[in-house]
């Protein structure tokens, strides 16, 4: 089995900022651990097969972007190894760079004075794509992504969604074998996100030997697009399997969702017997709190309802549901993606 991407015990530790000693002293006094060294990746081992659309799911700061930067030859690992297309990222970056490209969400790259078409063409030249080939691909991709009308608009005049579509075209114009997509639909409207998801999925499925590593914290996006998903938190891979298998892992458990009046005190739930994990989010506009419980069985439901009503709060809805990837995450980490 050949792997497009393989990592072995990959660890990346970021040193603290400059003036380390002063900051460490301050960090120690303020109890802020983030000013010291940060372990962004902790012995991560994954294998992504050729032709796979692989998802990396995790909250902000989980280590997704760090992993992509190491694979894109932009960062060196502190320890462990990473291979892309069979080449070591630390020792042999050139053949990797020929085969990869990367697009990040919210990217502001390019030059405002150039048109969208010129910008993409410029980046294609850094990969040695002949001008004629590049322009042909750009035109085709502009049509596909619905950016044809804006091809001659200066980049500074493009909206966020249009700009992200241009970035995606930049990623595909070099015809990479392995594409790293770092939260590519971040901040996009539904339509723009849908166009990107559809194109990426189709790009992998319709061609042989094309691989995508997609990082996202949109559960539905990962569920809908990916062949396999790794769940990452605090630099560690917690699970790695197909979306169905991941959900099956907690199918023996019961998921309940409740919508109640805004609750400040939710600590009591965590100590209840039978509650494996739970998460809560406040909906300020409705003045409600959404609670998700992963229960060993349905036994604790009555106790949960009683705890809510004893605080004088009203239960607006109660729903037993099939587990989602978010439930898998809550089950593993003990919190949501807040």
């Amino acid at each position, binding site marked *: 089995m*050949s792997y497009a991407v393989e990592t072995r015990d990959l660890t*990346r530790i*970021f*040193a603290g900022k400059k003036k380390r000693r002063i900051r460490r002293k301050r960090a120690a006094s303020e109890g802020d651990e983030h000013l010291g060294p940060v372990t962004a990746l902790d012995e991560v081992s994954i294998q992504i097969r*050729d*032709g796979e659309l692989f998802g990396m799911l995790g909250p902000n700061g989980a280590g997704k*972007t*760090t992993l992509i*930067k190491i694979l*894109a*030859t*932009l*960062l*060196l690992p502190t320890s462990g190894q990473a291979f892309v*297309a069979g080449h070591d990222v630390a020792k042999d970056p*050139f*053949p990797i*760079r*020929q*085969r*990869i*490209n*990367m697009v*990040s969400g919210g*990217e*502001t*790259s*390019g*030059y405002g*004075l*150039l048109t969208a078409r*010129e910008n993409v*063409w*410029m*980046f*294609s*030249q*850094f*990969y*040695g*794509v*002949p*001008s004629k080939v590049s322009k042909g691909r750009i035109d085709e991709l502009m049509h596909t992504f619905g950016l044809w009308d804006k091809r001659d608009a200066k980049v500074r005049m493009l909206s966020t969604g249009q700009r992200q579509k241009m970035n995606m075209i*930049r990623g595909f114009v070099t*015809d990479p*074998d*392995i594409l790293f997509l770092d939260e590519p639909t971040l901040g996009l409207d539904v339509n723009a996100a849908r166009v990107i998801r559809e194109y990426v999925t189709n790009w992998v499925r319709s061609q*042989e*030997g*094309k691989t995508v590593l997609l990082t996202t914290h949109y559960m539905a996006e990962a569920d809908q697009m990916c062949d396999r998903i790794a769940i990452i938190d605090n630099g560690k891979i917690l699970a790695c399997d197909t979306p169905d298998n991941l959900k099956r892992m907690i199918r023996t458990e019961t998921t309940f969702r409740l919508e109640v009046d805004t609750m400040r005190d939710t600590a009591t739930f965590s100590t209840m017997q039978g509650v494996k994990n739970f998460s809560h989010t406040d909906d300020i506009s409705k003045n409600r709190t959404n609670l998700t419980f992963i229960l060993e069985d349905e036994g604790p439901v009555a106790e949960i309802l009683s705890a809510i009503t004893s605080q004088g709060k009203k239960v607006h809805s109660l729903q037993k549901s099939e587990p989602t990837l978010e439930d898998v995450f809550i089950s593993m980490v003990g919190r949501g993606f807040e």
Partner: protein
Amino acid sequence: MKPAAVRRTDLRYRIGLNLRAVVGRSYPRIVGANREPSWIFFEALLPLLGIAAYVFIYQAFGTRAIAAILGSSSTAPWGMCGQAPCADAAQQAAYLAMAKANTNALIASVVLGGTMVAFWLNVLWSMASQLYWEKEIGNLQLYMMAPMNRMALLGGMAVGGMVMTSMRAVSTLIAGIFVFGVLFQVADPLLLLAVFFAALVALYGLGMMFASLYLLWGREAWNLSALMEEPIFFSSGFYFPVGGLFRVPGWGPIVAIVGSFVPATFGLDALRQLTLSTTAFGGKLWIFDAKTELYILVFMAVLFLVLARYSLAYLETLAKREGKLTSRHQ
């Protein structure tokens, strides 16, 4: 499953890749920067104001010198030739011609210097600071991820900067010639071209080297750019022949020697010799002859390009190790 397409790695491919990269990176500078017609006002006409200030000062000096030569009195019937009265009409005429030639040479020096200012400012603000800007807007990590050689990136920036600034400099030069009526005498056009290109390559080589250093220093580098603007105008002799500094006792030679580390100093000195004739200013204000200065410029060009290559390689290693240079987020 079909394996991914085999990618070429041979020398011909690599040369093609890097040439395309140079063209690609120079494109925004050549095409993009000229999309705003306001540059004609800001970068071709406004510099004339700075030049005009020096021109008027030198014209005033010239007028005063000519008035002294032409003015007669009972003790100096043929006017003053320097500190002493002129001996006869022939000496007076010779001094008068010399005063007019020196005034023209000074004004021409200023126009030439003002033209070269465009290149120096471009090197400072658009070469040296560029990688820092690229990092801020998110381009740098995309450049570092591409298979092109890093020198192709800097080379593209330099070629784009040279072409763009040459258009601006030529506009300023032509405007200067017409507005101030300057005369240039080019005796050796090939040597002139060689000096000009060697000076440009050395200047942009310096800018390429600074580009990596600026990225390491971050925002502090802005102060360095500001520091290197006006003082370098002076120490490199942008508005006067720098050889004059060697004649100032005490600090003069020190300032001139420090200024000579900027290739514009020797470049301007040689260009002035080649466009105003070596006999201008009595032939006493030149540092070396033009050919020697050409050799120095070629040496500087090679040195700065090599240093630029190594400083960028060092920067890339540091960026990958510490993870805080290629992305503004880390």
